[in-house]
């Protein structure tokens, strides 16, 4: 645990070296929405229908950004190799990286969400708190797979494109479910009987993915 925590601390420290980083992140989030908005110049009704999808597309792109960045830093001065040399458990390294990537992605989401609410003029309701577990579960699914696949993709010259090729198909079920769940919450109607079982299923897959990745990470570090 101390190992994972050290990695997390180092990552967050680098990420937020300057206070401007947060500002940049915030503006980036804002921009993602603005760009969607002006690109899809469509009726409000249509907008509302695609809103959950848009939200998750925004999440995914900020997540991809976080993943790429997090492992590009490791690659820079051969630090990925130095990790392989350390007398620590691969799982711990995975955990540390996973936590830092997740925290950064959650932060993006936290910044994106208010913009989303404002742009779509959604009324805040008590029910919206249900989005917290939904976003959490979806994000963890994305990052638990994303972390290990980034560590794979970083070994290639075409890191970014390969990460997309590997991650997107694999993570697609989680994203589909998350979009569905988000739609259910934002739909404003009653939360149907399907909501919680689905949420639990997403969470269950998070656990599965995480566990497998945790166990396999050692193999990625060694040659």
């Amino acid at each position, binding site marked *: 645990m101390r190992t994972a925590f050290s990695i997390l601390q180092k990552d967050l420290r680098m990420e937020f070296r300057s206070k401007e980083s947060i500002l940049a992140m915030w503006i980036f989030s804002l921009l993602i929405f603005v760009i969607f908005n002006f690109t899809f110049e469509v009726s409000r009704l249509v907008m509302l229908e695609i809103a959950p999808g848009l939200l998750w597309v925004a999440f995914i792109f900020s997540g991809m950004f976080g993943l790429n960045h997090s492992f590009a830093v490791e690659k820079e001065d051969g630090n990925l190799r130095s990790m392989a040399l350390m007398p620590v458990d691969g799982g711990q390294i995975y955990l540390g990286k996973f936590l830092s990537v997740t925290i950064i992605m959650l932060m993006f989401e936290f910044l994106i969400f208010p913009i989303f609410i404002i742009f779509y003029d959604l009324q805040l309701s008590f029910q919206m708190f249900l989005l917290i577990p939904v976003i959490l579960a979806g994000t963890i699914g994305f990052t638990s797979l994303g972390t290990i696949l980034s560590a794979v993709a970083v070994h290639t010259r075409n890191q970014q494109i*390969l990460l997309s*090729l*590997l991650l997107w198909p*694999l993570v697609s079920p989680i994203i589909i479910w998350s979009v569905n769940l988000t739609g259910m919450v934002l739909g404003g109607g009653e939360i149907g009987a399907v909501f919680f079982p689905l949420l639990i299923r997403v969470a269950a897959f998070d656990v599965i993915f995480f566990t497998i990745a945790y166990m*396999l990470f050692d*193999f990625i570090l060694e040659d």
Partner: protein
Amino acid sequence: MRPTIDKTLLIVLLITFLTSIFLIFNWVPQIKASNEAEQIAQKIFYFHVPSAWLGFMSFFVVFVASVAYLATRQRRWELISVASAEIGVLFITLVLITGPIWAKPVWGIWWTWDARLTSSLILWLIYVAFLMLRRYLPDGSKRANLSAVVGIIGFIDVPIVYYSIRWWETQHPNAVMASGEGSLAGPMFFTFMFSLATFTILYAYILRKRYQLLELEDTLNKQFKEMEIL
């Protein structure tokens, strides 16, 4: 030893293949359909579904070989997993080709974002990515490790991909086999099983051949190196 097995396999394959062609096009009774095109298209069923099943099986083999590789670090497991992934992609490609050919006369469109279709596409993409990854990495233990890891994660994802799509209203026929042999009457059932068997032999044969080819490549490389040094 080896050549005999291969030869036997090849002969059996040829026989079953010709037989199943005969069964499909000359023996099994035509289904009743509104037009001729649909009737002919229905024949695709005997290629479409076995391809899909064998595709799944190939990926299962990838999974098993990947686990075996990480456990034993033997090159042959790596080669099996690659060979099987390639064949799996080939079979799913067949599904993705025969499906739309069937869909056009039946549904009137080539493609729809139906659950089964989408999940087949995603499945295909997962293993294409697996193969791409291998192409981007230099040969060596690193590549073997990384692709084994992806091979494992990829397969674990397969049931989820299929699970996730149950949330969609689906246009694609569902589980013909499971929901009742009734719909698949005697001769059709027989023909289907025969076709499936043919595809399975085909799989076994290609896998063997591909594996041998990869092995040959290895030996050849080794010999080249020896020559270079001396």
